[in-house]
C-alpha cells in the first residue's frame, strides 16, 4: 500500500523554505506542485534552509555593503500536509528564522516568522495523449506568529504582513517526465511598524505601511519515479507597486521587491523504510530589484502517516 501511495506522494512536499532572505517573500513550493496526498494520510516534515547573499540591488543598482558583509538566514520549519479527501489537501508550515550580518554592527534577529495554511484542490484531471493533464487551485493564508519588527531590514526575519493568495497550477505528466506552470496572486495586508512616521517617496505620518500586492509565476520540469524525483524550477516574483531603495539608504518593507530565481529540487524515497523520504535542493536569484542576490540550500526529512482505515489489512 505504501508503495502505491508513493505514486501520489513522490512530490507533494517539496521545497517549502524558499524564504528568500532579502525579499522575505515566502515561497512555499509545496503549494506549487501537482501532487495530492490521499484522503486520511498525513505527511509531516522537518526542514532546514540556509540562505545568504553578499550582493543586493538598490533599485537596479547592484552592490555589496561593507557594513553588512554576508547576510545569512537560517530557517527551521515544521510542516504538515493532510488529505481531507483525495482531491482536497490542507497544508501548514511553521518557520523559525534567525538572521545574521557578518560585518557591521547590526544585531541579527530571530523568532517565529509567519504561519502558513493552505488548501489545495485538484479541480480537474484528464488524459491527453499518453499523459495526464491536471488543473489545481491552491489558496494560502499566512499570518505572523510573533511580534517581530519588520522595519529593521535587512536583519528583520520577515515583513509581518498577513497575506491571502490564490494560485492556479497546470501540470502535464507523460511517462516519468512532467512540465508544470503556475500563477499566483498574493494580497498583502498593511503592516504596523515601530515608527509613527516614515519616508517612502514622501513623508507619511502613520505607523501603518501600505504593502503592495505580489504575483508569482513559476515553470518547472523534470523527472518523477517511485523512488527519485529531480526537477528544475524557474520563478518570477513581482511586487506591483512600492518604491526603490534610494542610493545608500536602508531597505524598507514596502520596497518594490522583484526577483527571478532558478532552482533545483531532489527527493528520494526509501524502499526499505516505509513512509520515509528525504528532500534537498537549492535556489539562486538570477536578477532582482530591491532584494539580495540570495543563494539557498535546503534539506528535509518527511514521514508519512496513513490513517485511512482501508489501509489496515
Amino acid at each position, binding site marked *: 500500500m505504501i508503495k502505491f501511495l508513493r505514486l501520489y506522494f513522490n512530490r507533494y512536499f517539496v521545497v517549502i523554505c524558499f524564504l528568500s532572505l532579502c525579499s522575505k517573500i515566502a515561497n512555499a513550493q509545496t503549494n506549487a506542485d501537482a501532487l495530492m496526498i490521499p484522503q486520511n494520510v498525513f505527511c509531516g516534515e522537518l526542514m532546514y534552509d540556509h540562505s545568504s547573499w553578499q550582493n543586493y540591488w538598490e533599485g537596479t543598482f547592484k552592490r555589496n555593503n*561593507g*557594513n553588512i558583509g554576508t547576510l545569512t538566514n537560517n530557517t527551521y520549519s515544521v510542516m504538515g500536509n493532510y488529505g481531507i*479527501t483525495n*482531491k*482536497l489537501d490542507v497544508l501548514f508550515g511553521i518557520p523559525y528564522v534567525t538572521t545574521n550580518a557578518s*560585518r*557591521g*554592527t*547590526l*544585531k*541579527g534577529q530571530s523568532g517565529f516568522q509567519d504561519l502558513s495554511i493552505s*488548501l489545495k*484542490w485538484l*479541480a480537474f484531471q484528464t488524459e491527453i495523449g499518453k499523459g495526464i493533464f491536471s488543473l489545481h*487551485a491552491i*489558496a494560502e493564508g499566512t499570518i505572523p506568529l510573533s*511580534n517581530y*519588527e519588520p*522595519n*529593521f531590514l535587512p536583519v528583520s526575519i520577515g515583513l509581518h504582513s*498577513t497575506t*491571502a*493568495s*490564490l494560485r492556479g497550477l497546470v501540470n502535464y505528466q507523460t511517462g516519468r517526465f512532467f512540465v508544470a506552470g503556475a500563477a499566483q*496572486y498574493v*494580497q*498583502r*495586508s*498593511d503592516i504596523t*511598524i*515601530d*515608527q*509613527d*512616521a*516614515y*519616508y517612502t517617496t*514622501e*513623508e*507619511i*505620518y*502613520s505607523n*501603518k*505601511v*501600505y504593502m503592495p500586492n505580489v504575483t508569482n509565476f513559476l515553470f518547472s520540469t523534470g523527472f518523477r519515479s517511485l523512488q527519485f524525483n529531480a526537477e528544475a524550477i524557474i520563478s518570477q516574483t513581482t511586487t506591483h507597486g512600492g518604491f526603490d531603495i*534610494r*542610493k*545608500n*539608504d*536602508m531597505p524598507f518593507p514596502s520596497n518594490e521587491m522583484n526577483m527571478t530565481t532558478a532552482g533545483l529540487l531532489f527527493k528520494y524515497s526509501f524502499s526499505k523504510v516505509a513512509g520515509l523520504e528525504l528532500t534537498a535542493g537549492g535556489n539562486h536569484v538570477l536578477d532582482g530589484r530591491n532584494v539580495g542576490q540570495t543563494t539557498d540550500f535546503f534539506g528535509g526529512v518527511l514521514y508519512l502517516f496513513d490513517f485511512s482505515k482501508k489501509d489496515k489489512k
Partner: protein
Amino acid sequence: MKRHILYIVLPVALSAIVFLGSCNKTVIDRTSSYAALTPSNIDLNADTWKPVLITDPSVFTVAAPDAVTSPAYVADLNEIKAYQSSLTSDQKAIIQYWSAGAVLRWNEILRDLVAKHNLPPYQNADGTYPAPSSTNPFAYPQFPFSNPPYAARAYAYVSAAQYDALIAAYHFKKLYNRAAPYNLAGVQALIPKSALPSYPSEDAVVAGATVEIMKLLFPTEIAYIEQKAAEEIQYRIMAGANVRGELTAGESLGSQVADVFAARARADNAGKAIGTPAEWTQLQVNTAAKGEAYWISLESPSRPPMLPLFGKVIPFLFDTTTVKALRPGPPNLTNSDAFKKEVAEVLSYSQNPTREHQEQVEFWADGAGTYTPPGHWNAIAETEFVKQNYSEVRWARNYALLNMAEMDVAICCWDTKYYYFNQRPTQANPNIKTLTGIPNFPSYTSGHSNFSAAAATVLTYLLPDRGTKFTDLANQAAMSRLYGAIHYRSDVEVGLTTGAAVGQYAVKRAQSDGAGN
C-alpha cells in the same frame, strides 16, 4: 454530492477573500485631516514682539495697496470670483490642505525634504567618500546631506525667518489696515474668517520667506518649493482670503526678510563644518595626547566624521563663548573602572534586548533617510500646536523657539563630541551589536538626549498643561540610545542635562519676547 458543493463553495469563497477583500489597506496620514486654522487669538500686537534678527520692519519695502475702487483691485476680486464659480475637487483639496496653516504645512514640507536628503554619500571606487557641494548641488552626492546638525540648522533658519517675516507683516497690516476680500459682496469665505487685516497676506509672507531661505538650504528643490508656494497663493485666492495684490506684497516682504537670514547663514561657519583631512587627523592627535582612546569610524569603508566643526557654528540664543561654558566635563576615562562598567552595561542591553526596548529604539531611531531627531520633535510639536488654535505668527514664534534651541543644542553637542572625540561602545567592545545604525561620530554626549531635552524644555514651557509629557518622551528618546547599544549611560544622562540647559535659553527668550506664554 455534498463534496461537490464544498469543492465549489470553498474556492469561490477563498478567491473572493483574496481578490475582493480590502485586506485592511487604508493607511491614513494623521496630518491629512487637520481642520482649517481658526486662531483663538489673532495676536494683533505681534508687531511689538521681539524679532530674532530684524530690527525695524519699516526698512522693508511694502508699497501701499491698490485702492479698493481701482481697476486693479476690481480685477483681483474678479479673479477670486472666477475661481469660486467653478472649483474642481483638486482645487478644493488644495484649500483643505493649506487651510490648516502656512507655518504648519511649510514645516512639514521642510521635514519631507530633510528626510529625502538625509542619506550618507555612497563611497567612491577607491574607498574614499565624495562630499556634497553647495556650488554644484545637483552632482552626486546632491547638496545637502541633511544629517541631524544640518537639519537642526535648517529648521531653525526657516522657522526664525518665518517668525520675523510675520512680525514685519503685522507692522504693515496695521499700517494699511485692509479688510480681507471675503468681507466684500460677491466673495465667499471658504475658510474661517479672520479679523486680521489682510495686506500683506500672512500666508504669502511665510511662503516668500520660506522659498527664499530654502534656495540656500535645499538648492536642488527650488522648482518643487516654488510649485508649493504657487499652490498656496492659489489657495488664498480660491478661498476668498486674499486678493493677488496682497499675496504679491506678502511674498516680496517675506523674501526681503529672508535675505537677512540668508546673509547670516552664509557667514555662520556651517559651510566649513565638514573640516579638512588635516583637521580630522588633529582630532585623533588631541585625544591621543590625553592618553585616551580616540574615535574611529565603524563604517566600512571608514567614513570621515560627520561635520566635526559644527561646534563652531554661530548660535542664535547665545554667543560662542557660552558654547564652551556649556560644554560638560570629560567622559569616563578609557582605563577607568567606571568606563568598563559602562561598557558592560551596554553589552548587556545588546545581548538581552526586550521587544519593548527594541520598539523604543526603532521609534526614536530617526537615522538615515528620516527627518532626524529635531524633525521628530517638530512633528511632536505639530500634533500639540494644532490643538491650540494658534495664530500663524504664534505658530511661527513657537517653532522658532523650538528650532533655535535645537540648532543651538546641536552646536553644543557637536562641540562636546569633537572636543573629547571618544569611542563608541562597539569600538571599545566589538561584541556589542546594535539595534539601530551606529552614527558616524563620537559618542559623548548623545545627540538624541541633547535634542530631546532641549525640545522638551521649550515645549513644557509653551504648554505647561501637558505636565511631564514632553520630559517623559525626552527620557524615552535618550534611553533608547542606551537600549540600542550605541551609547553609554553617561552620554545619555549628561546629554539630557546640557539639552535642558540650552532649552532654558529659549525659555528665557520666550519670557521676554512680548508674546506672553
